[in-house]
């Protein structure tokens, strides 16, 4: 039996044992093969010392490609494998498993990226790309020869989940996890759960009443014994790692005892202070002490201290004596195994830029404001009126893509606004058939089930569609009507239109506080300001941080069914960890060589995880493996070279550096 075959997983190979490297060059169809001359690369790599075999595959990740690796490991007694293909982010786990099946330690794999970092970015420079691929693989081969066996470690997983954001996506995650028997903490920064969906009047394409379908779900969340709702609370600190996150939650003071409050709103009735009602998008007023909205969960009042004048009328009115003006923020420390970020969105604010005259003229409102006007529980009892004179408008214009598909604001399509506008126009038409609606659009996008039908329905109802973006919006100073100049790009003519009310379909933008959540959870933000998923197609709810998942609009604009699906998807992904009660983490850590360590303690303050402790007796540094995350910052700081980072040892990195420019062309 060969050494490679007999080498148990993790067993150190004998010192001085011959390194037998196999190099597998992937063509990735034409992704690599169409640019890099893979045959020439393999031929050159075959001449390097230690390389026993090279192989070119159309798709190394395919079954036949992996079978080829396994066959060659057997045939040539390989003990190191180099795969030159795509990004290790895509297929490193595939090939680690592949060589592990043959009895090799999974860390004996070196993955070289000749697609994302070579063929795709040098598409027109085939020869140079081929030379670069040779260099990259040579670096990999030299590193591979020095790779040492490691064990991936297992960490226990606390079978509890934290969900940040109790909109429809977060609630779905909470319900699914709770129904599977896991304890769930559902944190919501607003005084009530429900999120944005609670503010919608009707939801497309079937136009069912939003709160009528959301309300029962909110109640279900509240009644579920496994869900602990933490409303009016925010995540303040997150420490730890997959399976073992320590989270600090701040409960903002409601200035009343939630246990005593019955939600009767008697306090509101007597409160003399009126402020614009945020739930109604600033239309109408609420009191300084108020119940967020009639279906709020928990149905409890909240005192807005900023606007309170301390008249104490509410305290006198409250029959259960719940009011407490001296309440301070309180904190809860949680230990959870997984975190789901469902932090939601807000709509684009056209005020600062005065897009299409918003903020300059009274009779221009956003779709969200229109939504509240339509709502029977809204500020006008469901009557759509124009702000200037509270008259019901006849001619209503809708402008799509406000804050979307515009290089001056956001270049992306928000996806939902076409349907929102179509639905809003329909609802108004149904309520008041005498109204006249014109939707000004760039393109109408109706990609999902029932959406195109809804679009057709609104056209049958008589809603007009005009393809064009307003170029000028003015107010008639007398009538306060809105005059719009717009090019009808289908008819090829300029149209001058007059509306009683203009509604802007504002797009989806990152929610407030998303930056804080991003930093707390160590996530990446995309160019659009929303959070990044681990893979846009194959891992849409995972993140690069193990044990952290994303649902809903946190990671891009979504409609309700999509957000709900993602909520369920997160619960499913999280359950893998919660049910197994363990997670596999990388075996990469810092290691101290006690023979070289002089106990200078330079490394100790370097470690962001306090993983290095002094062994006082021996006078040497000691790495606590369970705490070490393997960043290597201490290793670079160690003045004696006593610290090493496994899998990224000095000799391994130096071998790469030494070999990177060997093929350099010199103009001589």
């Amino acid at each position, binding site marked *: 039996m060969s050494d490679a075959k007999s080498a148990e997983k993790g067993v150190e190979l004998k010192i001085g044992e011959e390194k037998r490297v196999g190099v597998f060059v992937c063509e990735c169809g034409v992704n690599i093969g169409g640019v890099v001359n893979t045959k020439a690369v393999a031929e050159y790599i075959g001449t390097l010392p230690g390389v026993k075999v090279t192989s070119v595959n159309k798709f190394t990740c395919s079954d036949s490609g992996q079978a080829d690796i396994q066959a060659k490991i057997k045939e040539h007694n390989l003990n190191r494998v180099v795969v030159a293909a795509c*990004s*290790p*982010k895509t297929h490193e786990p595939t090939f680690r498993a592949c060589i592990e099946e043959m009895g090799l330690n999974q860390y004996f794999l070196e993955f070289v*990226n000749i*697609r*994302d*970092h*070579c063929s*795709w*970015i*040098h*598409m*027109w*420079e085939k020869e*140079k*790309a081929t*030379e*670069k691929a040779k*260099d*990259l693989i040579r*670096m990999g081969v030299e590193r591979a020869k020095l790779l040492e066996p490691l064990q991936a470690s297992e960490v226990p997983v606390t079978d509890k989940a934290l969900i940040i954001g109790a909109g429809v996506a977060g609630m779905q995650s909470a319900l699914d996890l709770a129904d599977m028997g896991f304890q769930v903490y559902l944190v919501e920064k607003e005084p009530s759960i429900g999120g944005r969906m609670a503010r919608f009047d009707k939801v497309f394409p079937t136009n069912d009443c939003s709160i009528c379908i959301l309300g029962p779900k909110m109640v279900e969340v509240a009644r579920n014994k496994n869900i602990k709702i933490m409303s009016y609370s925010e995540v303040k600190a997150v420490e730890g790692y997959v399976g073992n996150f320590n989270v600090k939650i701040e409960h903002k003071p409601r200035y009343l005892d939630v246990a005593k409050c019955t939600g009767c709103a008697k306090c509101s009735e007597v409160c003399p202070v009126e402020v614009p009602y945020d739930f109604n998008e600033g239309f109408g007023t609420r009191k300084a002490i108020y119940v967020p909205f009639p279906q709020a969960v928990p149905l409890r009042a909240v005192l807005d201290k900023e606007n309170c004048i301390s008249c104490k009328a509410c305290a006198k009115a409250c029959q259960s004596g719940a009011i407490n003006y001296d309440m301070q923020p309180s904190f809860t420390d949680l230990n959870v195994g997984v975190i789901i970020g469902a932090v939601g969105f807000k709509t684009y604010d056209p005020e600062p830029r005065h897009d299409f005259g918003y903020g300059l003229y009274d009779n221009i409102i956003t779709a969200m404001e229109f939504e509240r006007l339509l709502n029977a529980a809204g500020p006008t009892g469901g009557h759509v009126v124009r702000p200037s004179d509270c008259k019901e408008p006849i001619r209503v214009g809708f402008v799509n893509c406000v804050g979307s598909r515009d290089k001056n604001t956001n270049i992306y399509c928000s996806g939902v606004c076409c349907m929102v506008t179509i639905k809003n126009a329909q609802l108004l038409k149904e309520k008041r058939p005498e109204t006249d609606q014109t939707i000004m659009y760039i393109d109408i996008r109706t990609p999902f089930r029932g959406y195109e039908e809804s679009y057709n329905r609104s056209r049958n109802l008589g809603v007009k569609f005009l393809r064009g973006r307003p170029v000028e919006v003015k107010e008639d100073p007398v009538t306060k009507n809105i005059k719009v100049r717009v090019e009808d790009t289908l008819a090829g003519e300029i149209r001058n239109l007059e509306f009683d009310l203009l509604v802007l379909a504002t797009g989806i933008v990152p929610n407030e506080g998303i930056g804080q959540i*991003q*930093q707390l959870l*160590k996530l*990446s*933000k*995309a*160019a659009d300001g929303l959070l*990044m998923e681990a893979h846009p197609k194959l891992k849409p709810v995972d993140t*690069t*941080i193990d044990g952290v998942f994303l649902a809903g609009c946190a990671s891009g604009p979504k409609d309700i069914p999509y957000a709900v699906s993602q909520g369920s998807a997160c619960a499913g992904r999280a359950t893998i960890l919660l049910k197994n009660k363990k997670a596999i983490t990388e075996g*990469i850590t810092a290691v101290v060589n006690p023979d070289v360590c002089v106990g200078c303690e330079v490394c100790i303050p*370097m470690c*962001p*995880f306090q993983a290095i402790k002094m062994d006082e007796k021996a006078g040497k540094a000691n790495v606590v493996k369970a705490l070490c*995350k*393997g*960043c*290597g*910052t201490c*290793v*670079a*700081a160690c003045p004696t070279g006593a610290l090493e*980072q496994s899998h*990224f040892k*000095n000799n391994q*990195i*130096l071998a*790469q*550096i*030494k070999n*990177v*420019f*060997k*093929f*350099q*062309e*010199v*103009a*001589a």
Partner: protein
Amino acid sequence: MSEAPAVTTTKEECWVPNILAFACNWCSYAGADLAGVSRLQYPPTVKILRVMCSSRVEPSFILKALKDGADGVLIAGCHIGDCHYIDGNKNAEIRINNTKKALEKLGLDKRLRLEWISASEGLRFSEVIKEFTDEIKKLGQNPVKEVKVNE
């Protein structure tokens, strides 16, 4: 997409700089991946060496690279505040700036560059490489490297 390579005539114009980029696993390596996925063409002057964190890069690695043939060395990590390891990149910043000061005495400081490139900044990655390549081209060959010819 980039245009076809320009027709070059003189030796100086023919010369292509060699850049070694240390990219952190979590942000910059992924940013380089995104540049690839987005097919953002940039010059084949750079080779990427993956480290877990930008703070793993020791000054000796940089000196070794300059000695072994690099005309420029790039260290790329997560933006401050976004580090996967809380504040490894702050350590990297201190270290690289100190190394830069030391290199200043040798007139090599412009050949070392530290950049923060996130996983979503594929475009930025390609632009940093383009810029750095142009800068190194202006500086010319690294005078201290021990030149190796094709073997």
